[in-house]
């Protein structure tokens, strides 16, 4: 009941709004003209709709035990509140113990989070693993059909020693934080140590602050704090899945491959229809054959080293992978029609997308 409410508190001139579903808590600070300190739990959706609909200008919010009063210009709303003590207790905001460069972290999340599972029957796979790889930090996600990982171009002694399994949902929320793109623009090179001096990553500070305990983790992005429960369990050993070498290498323009894939995908009507990639010297032929609908094929010029072969993939998964590749050139590495393939950039291997084929009989 109280989870449908938003907790609003004022201390001095700082207003903090907090919403939670117990697994995920998001809090945002803003500066106000505080008259009296206090706190109230208001119906979240309604309060947001009301405030958003008001004419531009100052808003006054007052509350007693039962009502919260919103006044702006000549508009006046009284909303019934929820009991304050039914709202889950809020912890003192934890101070970031380190920070990561916002641009690199958000890029890595964008590239990797798509491979996480959305199936709650496999709870571990709904998380993104933040772990160390060599000197650096790696983000990993898999839904068992594909696996994506991305190495951050930074080392971090605090995070580098950790093995954190963060729900993909929390990372998706982090990407949606209002103004996070401005935060990225302000991004500055971060010292290898990050903000280990412990100063809170408040607005204006570069990077995204991170603090974590045994069971939860908090991201601080400017005025917004996202606290999430960590998933508990041992992430699958994924390193052994990545073939050390591939006999076949297709090198192709990212946009021309994506455009062609999106065109032939128009013929896909259910998630069992694969796209076939027939790779040969000089190009790749894409084919979709959809029962009772028709078929589509397209040829894309490409460099190919290896022996000619045809591999079929789920087109949505393949597009996901190609889209995530940084740069203009994509490499598709294959072994045969039933072994994992890797999609990555031509120039660098920081991001890799391992994808299992669709077997067609």
């Amino acid at each position, binding site marked *: 009941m109280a989870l449908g409410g938003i907790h609003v508190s004022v201390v001095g001139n700082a207003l903090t709004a907090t919403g939670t579903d117990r697994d995920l808590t998001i809090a945002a600070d803003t500066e106000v003209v505080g008259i009296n300190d206090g706190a109230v739990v208001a119906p979240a959706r309604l309060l947001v709709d009301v405030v958003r609909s008001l004419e531009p200008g100052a808003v006054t919010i007052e509350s007693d035990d039962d009502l919260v009063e919103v006044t702006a210009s000549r508009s006046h709303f009284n909303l019934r509140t929820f009991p304050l003590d039914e709202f889950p207790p809020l912890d003192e905001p934890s101070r970031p113990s380190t920070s990561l460069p916002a641009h690199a972290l958000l890029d890595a999340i964008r590239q990797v989070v798509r491979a996480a599972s959305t199936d709650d029957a496999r709870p571990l796979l709904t998380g993104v693993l933040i772990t160390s790889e060599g000197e650096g930090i790696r983000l990993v996600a898999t839904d068992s059909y594909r696996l994506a990982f991305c190495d951050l171009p930074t080392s971090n002694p605090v995070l580098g020693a950790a093995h954190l399994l963060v729900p993909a949902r929390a990372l998706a929320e982090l990407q949606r934080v209002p103004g996070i793109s401005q935060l990225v623009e302000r991004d500055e090179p971060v010292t290898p140590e990050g903000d280990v001096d412990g100063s809170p990553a408040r607005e204006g500070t570069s990077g995204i602050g991170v603090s974590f305990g045994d069971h939860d983790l908090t991201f601080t992005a400017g005025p917004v704090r996202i606290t999430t429960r960590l998933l508990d369990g041992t992430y699958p050993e994924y390193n052994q899945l990545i073939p050390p070498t591939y006999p076949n290498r297709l090198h192709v323009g990212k946009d021309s491959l994506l455009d062609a894939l999106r065109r032939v995908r128009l013929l896909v009507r*259910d998630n069992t229809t694969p796209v076939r990639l027939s790779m040969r010297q000089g190009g790749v032929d894409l084919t979709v054959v959809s*029962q009772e609908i028709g078929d589509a094929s397209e040829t894309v010029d490409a460099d190919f080293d290896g022996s000619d072969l045809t591999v079929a993939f789920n087109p949505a998964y393949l597009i996901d992978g190609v889209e995530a590749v940084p740069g203009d050139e994509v490499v598709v590495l294959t072994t045969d029609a039933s072994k994992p393939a890797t999609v990555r950039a031509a120039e660098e291997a920081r991001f890799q997308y391992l994808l299992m084929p669709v077997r*067609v009989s």
Partner: protein
Amino acid sequence: MVEASPPAVGERPREGAGRRRARVVLHVDMDAFFASVEVLDDPRLLGRPVVVGGTGPRGVVAACTYEARVFGVRSAMPMAEARRRCPEAVVLPGRYTRYAEVSGALHLRLGQVTPLVEGIGLDEAFLDVSGACRDTGDGRSLAEALRARIADDLGLACSVGVGRSKLVAKLASVAAKPTVQGAMVLPGPGVVAVEPEEEAGFLRPLPVRALWGVGPATGRRLERLGVRTVADLADLPQGTLERAVGPTAGRLLAGLARGEDQRPVVADRRAKSVGQEETFARDLVDPTVLHRRLVRLVDAATRSLRRAGYAARTVTVKVRFGDFTQVTRSRTLAEPADTPHVLGTVAAELLDEVATRRGVRLLGVSLSGFAGADRARQLRLSLGTGAAERVTVGTPPNAPEAWSAVAAAVDDIRTRFGDAAVVPATLAGSDGGGARRRGEAQWGPSGDGGAGRAEGRGA
């Protein structure tokens, strides 16, 4: 109807431009197919009355030779009736796999005439040869050549009808069949070609029930109007007809009576469902026994499904009671499946929804809602049986992929060692009846043993 017209240009436009080139449709129908295959494989049966079908007390005749028809035996007749009419008949249980094999050889040859072949069952097909006629002659000579080829290659007789529609071609093939007169079997013409201008003369004397869409009920209603032949129907004012059978059916029938039938020949018609059903020699009451029979049916149905390269989304269970009332229950899954594990679990739940205490005469399972003809299977990374699987509640190690692997292995073993080599554990007991072969006992149980053992062949 012309049976000896010169191989001329009947189907070509004779009136120059403006007239649409007529379609040419062949209907190929094997003569007494199952029975003829039996005679082919055992020449001692030549000239004898041979009846193929269910050999048990509730069996029906699936096919019979013309020698048996002399005694009044017809297909779809109860086997008991057939035995009474022709006690000396050789009654055989039928070998579906063999018929399917011969049918495959037949369709290979049909496909060489035109790609537009629409198979109906194992022994019938429509061919749209409009294109082939333009290149290689008229419908009649194509039909003659095809009939000779089938006789030479397969050693089997067929009848071929030629017309500008499916309706006329089908009726023409009936006219091409051998006939029984008294105790005599008279050879038919083998090929009957109905030229467009001869259609009216060909159709009018036929009984109205020969028309597609005229069943017993419509037939009775028409008879009350004094309509017995196609001619009667064609001459009936359309308003009278529509009042008798309804406007839609009325318009359709009036058209058919004039030989108008636009139904196209649909090449390679794909199966919409695969199914298995079984009529029991005695009505079954015990749910445990019924579930065991269900396992066997699901096992067989899923095998056909996998063999065809399909996965199915919808499971339907049919239960017919001793009093011939019938209920069906079906459920559609979120994801298509092809394993007995997934589909059988659903089928068992559906069977549980049916009160079976009245006694079950027939049990059936059908699988439909097919996905991807070229059964595509998204492979998984082997994340191991490690933590990812352990925290997962409920599913693995019963994961669908594990059962797919089992099904594939079973298919391999059966291909090499026969269907009875591997059976579900539930069927491995003394009364399980073993694996069900395709087409086995589809015309009713053979023999008159207990329900469980009726088809012999323990595991």
